[in-house]
């Protein structure tokens, strides 16, 4: 890497069970205005814009082109979109900044799960020949992984309940979270996972601004420097993977330099309690690391934005001086198939 690039601003919506009173662009726009206002930048000052979303969620074709109305693409802007979580849009923006062509980038993502049935919608991302025709919903696949972990002795139901409780307890300090404070663990959704082990279903959006070098120092008192970022994917076949491990997370973390020095904070994108168990192991996080102080994806899970929120939350803690070295993680696909790891650092205080 030849250029220092930092997250200099982060904004997110309040994540809600439904946002039917607003369209996607109406939901997104206040977040874009917020993140721009934090830096004093205008759309015309931004070198590159990249977004992440999926039309399947709300069943609205080309919703991302309408969402672009909220950016204000005049004069014409340099823009790109990924049909992935916004964390991967951030990765694309980071590579664009590395080229030296631009000094600033706006990254945003949004997801409205409320119009559809997200458990069923997510089956459409699966192997269309052997798996999708069986309509195995997202909770069912996570439950298969959870049972494999229990069988392997890596966790048990009380430990999963403790992950759920700790996450929502942390979220009580996060005004944007959807589930805050004590939430009953509830009945089985797909055994061994209970309601409390699953993420809330809801709508939301997030945005960050990246900047390089001195530009970052101008825009932010304490930039969250991206010391490393990498993403890795595993085979799509569930039956060829060891579901109790996440070699893709481990490798991404290694490439991002996460193991060079300990982090003090980790924001993990673990939509299901059992997945936090896998990620803690893969990332070698010990008890002295603050894991998901925001409450994580168990407290708010706007699909397509939840990964970007993790990086944003990690960066915001660096901005506020609450962390010196934080790890942000995002996942995509069933049972943690694909994983992105970013390591963020603040300048010494």
């Amino acid at each position, binding site marked *: 890497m030849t250029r220092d690039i930092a997250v200099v601003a982060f904004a997110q919506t309040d994540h809600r069970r439904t946002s039917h009173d607003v369209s996607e662009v*109406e939901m997104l726009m206040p977040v874009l205005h917020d993140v721009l206002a934090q830096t004093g930048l205008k759309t015309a000052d931004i070198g590159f814009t990249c977004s992440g979303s999926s039309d399947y969620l709300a069943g609205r074709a080309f919703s991302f082109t309408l969402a672009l109305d909220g950016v204000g693409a005049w004069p014409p802007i340099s823009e790109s979109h990924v049909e992935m979580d916004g964390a991967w849009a951030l990765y694309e923006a980071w590579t664009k900044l590395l080229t030296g062509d631009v000094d600033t980038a706006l990254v945003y993502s949004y997801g409205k799960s409320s119009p559809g*049935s997200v458990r069923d919608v997510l089956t459409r991302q699966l192997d269309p020949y052997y798996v999708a025709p*069986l309509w195995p919903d997202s909770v069912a696949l996570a439950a298969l992984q959870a049972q494999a972990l229990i069988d392997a002795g890596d966790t048990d139901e009380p430990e999963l309940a403790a992950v759920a409780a700790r996450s929502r307890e942390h979220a009580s300090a996060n005004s944007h979270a959807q589930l805050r404070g004590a939430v009953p663990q509830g009945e089985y959704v797909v055994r061994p996972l209970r309601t409390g082990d699953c993420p809330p279903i809801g709508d939301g959006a997030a945005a960050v601004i990246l900047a390089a070098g001195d530009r970052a120092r101008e825009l932010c008192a304490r930039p969250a420097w991206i010391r490393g970022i990498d993403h890795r994917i595993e085979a799509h076949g569930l*039956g060829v993977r060891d579901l109790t491990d996440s070699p893709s997370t481990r490798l991404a973390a290694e490439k991002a330099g996460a193991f060079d020095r300990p982090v003090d904070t980790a924001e993990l994108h673990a939509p299901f309690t059992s997945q936090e168990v896998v990620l803690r192991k893969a990332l070698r996080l010990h008890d002295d690391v603050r894991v998901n102080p925001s409450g994580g994806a168990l407290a708010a899970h706007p699909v397509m934005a939840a990964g970007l929120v993790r990086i944003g939350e990690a960066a915001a803690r660096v901005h506020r001086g609450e962390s010196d070295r934080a790890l942000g993680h995002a996942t995509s696909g069933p049972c943690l198939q694909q994983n992105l790891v970013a390591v963020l650092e603040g300048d010494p205080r």
Partner: protein
Amino acid sequence: MPEVLQAPLVVEFPFTRSLGPVQSAFLTGLRERLVLGVRTGDGRVLVPPVEYDPVTAEEIHDLVEVAPTGTVTTWAWNHAPRRGQPLDTPFAWVLVQLDGADTALLHALDAPGPHAVHTGMRVRVRWAGERSGAITDIACFEAYDGADERADDRADQREPAGHSGEFENPVTGIVAAARLDYTYSPGRAQSAYIHSLGGRRMVGERCPSCDKVYVPPRGACPTCGVATSEQVEVGPRGTVTTYCIVNIKAKNLDIEVPYVYAHIALDGADLALHGRIGGIPYDQVRMGLRVEAVWTDDSRYPDHYRPAGEPDADYDTYRELL
């Protein structure tokens, strides 16, 4: 603020997918009540089989026949089956490693309850009565009491036999039906627009930054990136800015061809919307033609636009709206 509108929306599509040689053999095999795997370069047997080695990306094609019996490697009890899933009574999702295979297959296990399921349990394929060459030719798995049999003949240890993958009338494609149900909401700005249309008024929204009036409004000014909010009634008359002549009859559309589809700049709007032009022969429609909306008896939106009987608009009045 008027009530935000909502309506059911069904997105349904029959995805037609062609198969590679390995997928074709596997799915045709299921039709013939036979489970095939594929052997990788390092000797592992993948079931379900894929065209490329998931580790090395090497193209693989050596097919072998594995047993219709196997062992559960993990499971999850689904007490509330959802639409499209293999069984409509409570069942277990299972990953099953078939005897002779090194990887596991995802499917459903029919069992009386979670107490009857455990990792390591022996199961066998229950074939569907009617089979077409699809993963659903396996209806599900069921418990298999094959312990004694295996003591004599360790079926799971036996080297699987090779298979040519050749069948009569091989399956070369699948049609995968997909249906997703949504509750569509157009949001604040478009709800307000649709409400106004119900009263036969066309109401746009003005950008507070550049003053442009958008019809229909979508809640944001696409050039300034700010929310529009001030409501502005436009029309009911407007000017044809450009048009095309449609010569192909669309399915389920009860309009005779040729007809004219036009961009119409309603008076007071800064963006043209589109609509059909009627009440005038198609070859007499022209840029600058003044038109007005025509509402049929109980319609919630204009059926078409017809000449308003005014002189044509001067080009300079609409050149910025092209």
